[in-house]
């Protein structure tokens, strides 16, 4: 009988959970409630966990408490998206529960899950049941009640099995707790991520290979077909090679083009790189590789499409960063700086033009990590930094970034949930006045705009009682589905009509990568015809997946 888990065993179990998450990433990504191109939950959780798991592989002989702390630290910096941030807080709680423990006994595990539950619930301002929070809480409750029984906590394998089973049961209950899941016919994606991690860990402890097992999971719409899972685990090299992390350059970039072949890119780059994380679709592929020659990887990418968001880090330096606990470095900071997240080259230019000292590429489909936001904040040079996340999936990451410890910069977050809100807030920024005055003025400014987003449905569904077919254009007003039309232009006109334009309004139209200048100009004329006298400012935004953003103020 397994009475305790040693540090190495815990590291291996968590690594198995990570590998399992990697296999189930695509099915988890497919569980989006909104049929919009989105920051994928599976990918976000995977990237959040990757750095910590890689550090585990280098920490042979560490205590259980140390292993948990490594995973938590890595997850904190790499957290991205709502699910990633909650997962990072989950690991932070686990680490708090196991702090100072040489080994993990049954009671420790229950206590760790209790702490993890509390940390996860605290991570979100307004905890909602029927999400991964519920799954985490149900696991903690099941463990606590089992451990409370005399002697029942002595079998660690049985406890992990219980945790896995409890998580599956909780996951199945998520649609009945959260109507929007019911309506979309899915279980919660983040919740499934937790189930998959626990399932991978349990099966590993039970002597099975995490790369082979079928967890027999339900999505509510049906059971996941094991054939859907990644048959070859492209990231498996990542862990095997992680002892070589100090070697080479961490190279990241985005390829944008037409008819991109994701599998081919994975295969080709796999031959020259370690630590592959390559995700995307036929139009956008995000590449994260560790290579000896970043130039060769970039040349490969540029032959296939437009490159952007290029980031190259020397791994040796990165490891020094870890060693110093991510202490702030560089020149002394002064003044107050603005940093924005922007999902397109035109929008990045607009934010810089409006006074942002640094801009992070990212948005709905590309959620930046805590570390990326902090790097930008540092590069801004401000002693105080105000961050504009400009997306609801990035806002929580920004909040986590602001809560880091031992920082040389004060970081404040304006909760801008759309690009339109972000631009209004940026225009209210004034480096001559205090951070407190800016925060007030910027928060006021973003309430003065109505945000409209136009995007295309990626599947058939019913949302808030409105039937949406794949390929339809949806008009979201303040983030909620308002209209469904055949063309992006009709969707925008209809959404504007719903807002009720008067000649006193200013409409700012941000043209996405998918809309031409001619189309946008024709649309401007139609808006003018609809509301004579209204001021219309047309700006090239360059954002993917959203032909138009618009603000009305």
């Amino acid at each position, binding site marked *: 009988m397994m009475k305790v888990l040693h540090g190495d065993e815990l590291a291996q179990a968590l690594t198995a959970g990570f590998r399992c998450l990697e296999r189930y990433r695509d099915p988890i990504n497919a569980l989006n409630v909104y049929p919009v191109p989105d920051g994928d939950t599976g990918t976000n959780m995977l990237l959040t966990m990757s750095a910590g798991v890689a550090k585990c592989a280098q920490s042979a002989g560490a205590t259980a408490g140390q292993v948990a702390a490594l995973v938590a630290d890595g997850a904190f910096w790499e957290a991205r998206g709502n699910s990633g941030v909650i997962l990072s807080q989950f690991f932070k709680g686990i680490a708090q529960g196991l702090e100072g423990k040489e080994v993990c006994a049954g009671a420790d595990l229950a206590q760790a899950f209790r702490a993890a539950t509390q940390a996860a619930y605290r991570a979100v301002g307004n905890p909602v049941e029927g999400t991964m929070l519920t799954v985490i809480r149900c696991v903690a409750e099941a463990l606590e009640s089992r451990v409370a029984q005399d002697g029942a906590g002595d079998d660690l394998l049985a406890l992990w099995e219980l945790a896995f089973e409890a998580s599956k049961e909780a996951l199945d209950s998520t649609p009945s707790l959260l109507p929007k899941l019911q309506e979309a016919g899915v279980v919660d994606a983040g919740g499934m991520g937790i189930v998959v991690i626990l399932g991978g860990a349990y099966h590993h402890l039970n002597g099975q290979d995490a790369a082979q097992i079928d967890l027999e999971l339900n999505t509510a719409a049906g059971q996941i077909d094991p054939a859907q899972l990644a048959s070859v685990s492209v990231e498996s090299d990542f862990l095997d090679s992680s002892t070589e992390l100090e070697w080479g350059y961490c190279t990241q970039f985005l390829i944008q083009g037409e008819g991109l072949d994701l599998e081919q890119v994975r295969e080709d780059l796999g031959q020259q790189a370690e630590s592959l994380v390559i995700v995307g679709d036929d139009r956008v592929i995000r590449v994260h590789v560790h290579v000896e020659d970043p130039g060769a990887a970039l040349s490969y990418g540029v032959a296939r499409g437009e490159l952007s968001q290029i980031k190259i880090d020397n791994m040796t330096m990165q490891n020094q960063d870890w060693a110093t606990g991510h202490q702030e470095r560089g020149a002394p900071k002064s003044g107050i700086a603005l940093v924005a997240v922007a999902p397109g080259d035109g929008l990045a230019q607009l934010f810089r*033009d*409006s*006074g942002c000292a640094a801009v992070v590429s990212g948005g709905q489909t590309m959620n930046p990590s805590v570390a990326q936001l902090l790097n930008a904040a540092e590069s801004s040079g401000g002693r105080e930094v105000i961050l504009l996340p400009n997306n609801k999936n990035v806002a929580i990451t920004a909040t986590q970034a602001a809560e880091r410890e031992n920082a040389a910069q004060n970081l404040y977050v304006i909760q801008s949930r759309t690009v339109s809100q972000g*631009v209004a807030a940026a*225009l*209210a920024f*004034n480096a001559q006045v205090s951070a407190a005055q800016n925060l007030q003025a910027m928060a006021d400014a973003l309430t003065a705009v109505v945000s409209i987003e136009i995007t295309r449905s990626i599947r058939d569904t019913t949302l808030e009682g409105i039937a949406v077919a794949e390929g339809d254009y949806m008009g979201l007003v303040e983030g909620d589905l308002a209209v469904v039309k055949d063309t992006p232009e009709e969707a925008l006109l209809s959404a504007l009509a719903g807002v009720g334009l008067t000649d006193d309004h*200013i409409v700012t139209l941000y043209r996405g990568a998918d809309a031409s200048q001619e189309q946008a100009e024709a649309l401007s004329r139609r808006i003018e015809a609809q509301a004579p006298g209204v001021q219309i400012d047309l700006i090239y935004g360059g954002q993917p997946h959203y032909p138009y953003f618009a603000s009305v103020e």
Partner: protein
Amino acid sequence: MAIRIVTDSTSDLPADLARQLDISIVASNVVIDDVNYRDGIDLTPDDFYRRLTSGGNLPTTSQPSVGAFQTAYQELLEQGHEIVSIHVSGKLSGTVNSATQAKAALGDDVPIEVIDSGLASSALGLVAVAAAQRAQEAASGREVAEPVRANLGLTTTFFSLDTLEYLQKGGRIGKAQAFVGSLLSVKPILTLLDGEVSPLERPRNHERAMRRLVELARERAPLQQLGVVYSTEADWAADLRHRLSELLPEEQIITSRFGPALGTYVGPKALGIALTSAR
């Protein structure tokens, strides 16, 4: 014998009002294509703005000479007056230096009080007007100068520009540099803070800017003095003055025009307010 107020042409005071209050105005210099013009004397505002926007060389301005101040001071001293000489912010212009040097050249004991207002344009004009009104009942220059100095903080100005292009070209953009962005058609509102041009807000169009100027005035009510100043659009100034009439009777609101000294920097279609709060 009386107390007389001297200011410089950057105060943009309407000539009638200056005459009525016995305020002497020393002219700045404007150089266009190597020809020197005295602000308000050799060059009308309409001529000036036509030249400014014609695309030729930008006019340059320079402070009044020490000699110009000496002449103005001497004339008043010979009539037996004491002088309170109030000028544009020393951080924007060397005018105060010229005035101080002129005073020094006239001897140690001349009854001249030189004041750096830290202000410009109609805000400086308001301070000069208040000083002139006080001078009518005062017994000495000091009796005028002391309260003027003490109350400078009550006077302020806000102006909305059509473009920051002229401020930038003229090299006076200072801290407003951050507002230079041109992708969105903002109408930046600037103010004078510690004697320097400082950015304040970025409303999205002329109407929003106009409303914001009224709000900024309202936030500082009750007011003792209120002025409206424009560069090229007289009807905008009339509209703004009308909107401000809730704060002071319209006939008490002084309308003036950005002269060349400031016009070079604010450019066409600029509109501003100046105000003095009640204590």
